[in-house]
């Protein structure tokens, strides 16, 4: 599979994807919106699912369905094996960590909340500092605002500069000696900016702080090695990387996870319970109370295969090329301003922009009427919007199945919108 789909066209010696062939694997991409073919550019919100993912879950419910771990019958053994097999694959996918270090959650949001509750409540005290950045998604913002309020800890933000990148000039002061945690996004879902996580992680560790990386936008789009980053925690969601909704991942270093209290209490996560006492199961199950999203884990497995077969390097290259193309085309439109760095080496394919005269909501509605799905709003980053003096942006975000033709349609329709809303 990988071969054909990655040999579509070549450029500058790099292997590029062949999105036209890839499209054929995604049933929804043959859908029409009204009388137009769907052009899906809302991949930072959620991606579509290939046939292999859809049918793996279908098959699961048709042939294997059972609760996991506790069963002595065939269906239970098969389901447990499938459920745990995906965990192995995830561990390999993010750089070859231990299987015990992979905790299933509902999504990236829950993964970060798990750390805030189980690690944060025990380790964060009044006067401690938590360092975030100005470009965080609410998922990596609100849990810490709540924790800071509860504990009296202080939140400090690494600022962004005029090029929409983190300004690391005062990083040594911002990450102070009383900093207990540095938690930053690997890639911004608004700006597309890719942050220098290795560097920031080193500073964090040198001050004795733990380092959490929100990988919701990075793991789907580029090779990620959590050991090379030396992240203590790393969070992401399956649904943004071809997988199903309702399943996400928290990676955590074994030594740290072992010291943490559990999060969700109930079945599966215990070793022994008496009426007045409970003791915990081994990692990773200690953090997985109750019946998990088994079908979700089963469906996540072919998603990982699909990405691995294409090759994360190839995916990254494809997105660099297509992002460059998009930025160039959008820059041709005088009324459009791109909100994010232009240099494609330091950014991903979530491309925010505004039209100086048309509100992003109107733009999105207009684009939708032509079959083009983009997102408009604050993208769950209200403080960043305010910081930028904006209330909303429109955002086109690309993935493996997007083509230059999709971008051409976007740009053409943005011109049409000018005619519709501004009589141009």
């Amino acid at each position, binding site marked *: 599979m990988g071969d054909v789909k990655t040999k579509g066209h070549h450029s500058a010696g790099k292997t590029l994807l062949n999105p036209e062939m890839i499209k054929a694997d995604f049933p929804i991409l043959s859908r029409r919106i*009204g009388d137009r073919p769907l052009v899906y550019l809302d991949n930072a919100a959620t991606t579509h699912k290939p046939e292999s993912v859809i049918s793996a879950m279908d098959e699961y419910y048709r042939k294997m369905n059972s609760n996991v771990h506790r069963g002595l019958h065939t269906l239970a053994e098969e389901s447990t094996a499938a459920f745990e097999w995906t965990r192995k694959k995830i561990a390999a996918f993010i750089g070859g960590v231990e299987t015990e270090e992979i905790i299933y959650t509902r999504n990236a949001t829950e993964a970060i909340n798990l750390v805030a509750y189980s690690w944060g409540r025990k380790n964060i005290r009044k006067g401690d500092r938590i360092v975030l950045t100005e470009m965080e998604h609410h998922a990596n913002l609100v849990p810490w605002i709540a924790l800071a309020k509860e504990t009296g800890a202080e939140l400090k933000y690494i600022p962004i500069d005029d090029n929409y990148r983190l300004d690391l000039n005062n990083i040594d002061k911002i990450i102070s000696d009383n900093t207990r945690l540095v938690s930053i996004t690997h890639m911004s879902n608004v700006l597309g900016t890719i942050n220098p996580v290795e560097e920031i992680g080193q500073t964090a560790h040198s001050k004795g702080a733990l380092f959490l990386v929100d990988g919701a936008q990075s793991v789907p789009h580029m090779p990620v090695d959590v050991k090379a980053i030396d992240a203590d925690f790393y969070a992401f969601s399956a649904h943004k990387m071809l997988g199903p909704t309702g399943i996400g991942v928290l990676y955590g270093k074994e030594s740290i996870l072992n010291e943490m209290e559990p999060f969700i209490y109930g079945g599966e996560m215990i070793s022994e319970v008496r009426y007045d006492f409970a003791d915990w199961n081994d990692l990773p199950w200690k953090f997985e109370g109750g019946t998990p999203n088994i079908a979700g884990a089963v469906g996540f497995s072919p998603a990982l295969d699909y990405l691995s077969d294409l090759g994360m390097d190839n995916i990254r290259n494809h997105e660099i090329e297509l992002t460059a193309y998009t930025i160039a085309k959008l820059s041709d439109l005088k009324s459009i301003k791109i909100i994010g760095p232009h240099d494609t080496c330091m950014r991903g394919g979530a491309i925010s922009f505004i039209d100086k005269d048309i509100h*992003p909501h109107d733009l999105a509605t207009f684009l939708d009427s032509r079959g083009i799905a983009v997102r408009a709003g604050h993208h769950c980053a209200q403080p960043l919007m305010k910081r930028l003096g904006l*209330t909303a942006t429109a955002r086109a975000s690309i993935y493996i199945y997007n083509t230059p033709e999709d971008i051409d349609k976007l740009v053409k329709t943005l011109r049409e919108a000018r005619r519709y809303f501004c009589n141009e």
Partner: protein
Amino acid sequence: MSENLDSLYRDIIMEHYKYPRGKKKLEDPDVTSEGKNPVCGDEIGMKVKLKDGKIEDISIDCLGCAISVASGSMLADAIKGKSIEEVKRIASAIKAILKGEKPDEDFDLGDLEALEGVSKFPVRIKCALLSWTTLVEGLETWESGKKSEIATTE
């Protein structure tokens, strides 16, 4: 979809959006009210002058999408000279229309009828409502201030 689009952005709405009424300075207002819709980022500032319990003049400054701007502009047109009670009844009627329901009362809404198309765009209903809820809140605050004024002078 494109039919639908035109039912949302009707000519009347586009007209109000491009040339919003009520965008002006207003000195010594009786009512000042601000509203925002944090999810959309829409923000509205409103000033109202009352005379004999009726709306004498209104100014609206709206930062938002075509729908919220147009809705505010039509509001400015529609309420001049109306009593506070009448304004509240119109607001209820608009709410009903936006939910795709028939309003309780059957009165002539004029341009405001054009908001009907919004009911098919659930995420945009809030935009159309913002100016109305901001106005009603402002008037109610004014009324309760009046009452407490009366209460304290009594």
